[in-house]
């Protein structure tokens, strides 16, 4: 049997691919590294591939439709909003993401922003640099253990935020996620609300951690900011376009909410003239929530485990388009091993 062809798209073409090779050591595969500069080149690169590992942004319908032989398309990142999932499903291609590769990091960023907003950390630093010394300027500092945390999206990251801020800081935690099983809610000791606006109405801190898709695009806008408390903060560490950014800017300018912590923006890199960057009550980061010395290689390990599982004829543990089964000839696969758990740097 011919070797199975794993095409790695984007990035350096002379990458040693240590993790990719290690996870697929038992398979008869060949790695091909391509750095296309156009859709046409990307289409050429994926033709004949058994597996595609995507590091760049080549997830359009026409590129995916050119992948005539692929069983799996693995993205290294958590988000897969740059992939035309419907096209992949049509082609019978299993799409996997890097679930769990940076849940620790992103949840820490959300916690950091919550605490930094609560403690006015950024404002304090700037004030002292200006040679002033005036705590009264920051307004009231609320006791966080008496405040309510609202988490939108209760997946891996949302649950870690609940564990850290809910159980650790003893914040009262409410959760909005219509798809979550009730027993997960019980296990985490949080309260579930069934309307998004109720969460915005009741929370002192709103943290959004959902994937960006058609259902979540601009799911947060004027209506939600209007019902928030004037004393409440809004934190987004997932994707910029889950909120309507002009509506957020307006809410902040009109004092409808007290401040925001933003790791992500609708346009990235953010326009230096974006009014959000001029506001003292807004703290920001350059979409860096997922970063750490671990998440970089863990993303590779995870993506490689997903591809290896599919090529072995198993189900991957982070499949994102379960409806693809209707397009597959071999409907039954064994659930794949989640991969060896080694060296995750506890």
């Amino acid at each position, binding site marked *: 049997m011919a070797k199975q062809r794993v095409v790695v798209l984007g990035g350096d073409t002379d990458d040693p691919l240590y993790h990719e090779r290690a996870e697929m050591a038992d398979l008869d595969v060949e790695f091909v590294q391509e750095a296309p500069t156009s859709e046409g080149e990307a289409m050429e690169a994926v033709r004949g591939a058994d597996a595609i590992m995507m590091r760049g942004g080549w997830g359009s319908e026409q590129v995916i439709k050119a992948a005539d032989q692929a069983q799996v398309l693995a993205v290294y990142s958590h988000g897969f909003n740059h992939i035309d999932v419907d096209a992949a499903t049509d082609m019978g291609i299993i799409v996997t993401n890097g679930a769990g590769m940076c849940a620790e990091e992103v949840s820490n960023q959300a916690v950091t922003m919550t605490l930094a907003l609560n403690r006015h950390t950024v404002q304090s630093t700037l004030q002292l640099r200006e040679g002033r010394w005036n705590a009264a300027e920051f307004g009231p500092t609320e006791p966080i253990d008496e405040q309510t945390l609202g988490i939108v999206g209760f997946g891996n990251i949302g649950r870690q935020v609940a564990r850290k801020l809910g159980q650790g800081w003893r914040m009262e935690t409410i959760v909005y996620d*219509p798809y979550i099983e009730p*027993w997960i809610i019980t296990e985490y000791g949080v309260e579930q609300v069934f309307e998004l606006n109720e969460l915005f109405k009741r929370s002192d801190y709103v943290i959004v951690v959902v994937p960006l898709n058609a259902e979540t695009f601009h799911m947060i806008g004027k209506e939600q900011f209007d019902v928030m408390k004037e004393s409440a903060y809004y934190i987004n560490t997932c994707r910029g376009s889950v909120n309507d950014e002009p509506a957020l800017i307006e809410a902040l300018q009109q004092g409808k909410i007290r401040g925001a912590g933003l790791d992500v923006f609708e346009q990235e890199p953010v326009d230096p003239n974006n009014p959000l960057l001029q506001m003292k009550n807004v703290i920001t980061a350059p979409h860096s929530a997922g970063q750490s010395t671990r998440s970089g290689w863990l993303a590779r390990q995870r993506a490689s485990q997903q591809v290896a599982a599919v090529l072995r004829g198993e189900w991957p543990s982070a499949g994102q388009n379960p409806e693809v089964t209707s397009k597959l000839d071999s*409907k039954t696969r064994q659930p794949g*091993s989640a991969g*060896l758990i080694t060296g995750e740097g506890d």
Partner: protein
Amino acid sequence: MSPDAKDIRVLYLGPKSRPGVHSSDIEQQSKAAKEMGAEFVVYAGDSDGELIEALKDADVAMSQGHGIDPSLFTHMGNNGRCKGLVSFGHGYDGMDLSSAVENGVILANTASFGTEEVSNQTMMHFLVCSRKFVLHDKLVKNGTWTREHLAPMGHIAGQTFGIIGLGDIGRTVARKAQAFGMKVIGYDPFVSSWDAKEYGVEMVGTPQEIAKRSDYVSPHTYLTPKTHHMVGAEFFDLMKPTAYLINCSRGPVVDEKALIEALQQGKIAGAGLDVFEQEPIDPNNELLKMDNVSVTNHYASYSEVAWGRANTQLGEEAMRVALGYWPMSLINPDVRSTVEPRNWAVSWEVMLAEQGK
């Protein structure tokens, strides 16, 4: 296009051993159908022929210990009106999953209803074993007051608790064992490493490693061909002579003959058992004669709250299946490839809103 709730008929199959269901018995089970405005019908027949007829006129069936012959699947799913079967409880041993997939029959259970209770029963058996309660209870009641049988007795904090199967129950046991200061290790080839990490459990690569390293071993798996006798002679040979086996899952997960032999030969220190290979247990079973074995009669999941929740969940899952949603606790996920696309499962409150109730 999902069907209208008022046209839905839910068929309730009660325990075969207890015919003649009163409406007060099924208040919780019928609650969801009532809230949606669907019809709830109690099956009164007692033959497969009658059941086939009843299934023809129902959109979904729910079973409370009724026991369904897999041949009935050929009248359900893609072959008839009744799209699926929801069954009370956790285990689904005895269900033919592949036949259900073939016929497009959606199967669900009442997942997680007794997670608290089963994990508590597990912790109870673990403490009873560790503190040698059965023996001392008997001694004291018989007028003997002695400390000569105490050693060896573990410190618990710092000891190792090994869990096979890290589903809802396994994870809850892990959390509780951690509260006792124990190191928790786990074996489950299907659990992702980030989930294990989130629960603070060290995952190991083989069941053998669980056997070797643990001071207490507790399986929390389903009974399937793969888990049948998963804990057997080879496993007991690897266990420490001071270690205990706890079983609150299903009897046949443990090779009971091998367990009895291991206990008789002192290969392990004792066992805490809620389940047996034969139930009700034979009164002459050797396990009942041992002072280092604690036993209960397969009631680990029981509390009024848990069973009430299972009953309510049974009704909600049935309505999900009938109204074109996936159930929350789908137990044959491969059926996704043999039936038409459906809506994602959503919380009951959200579902009521979506259906305009």
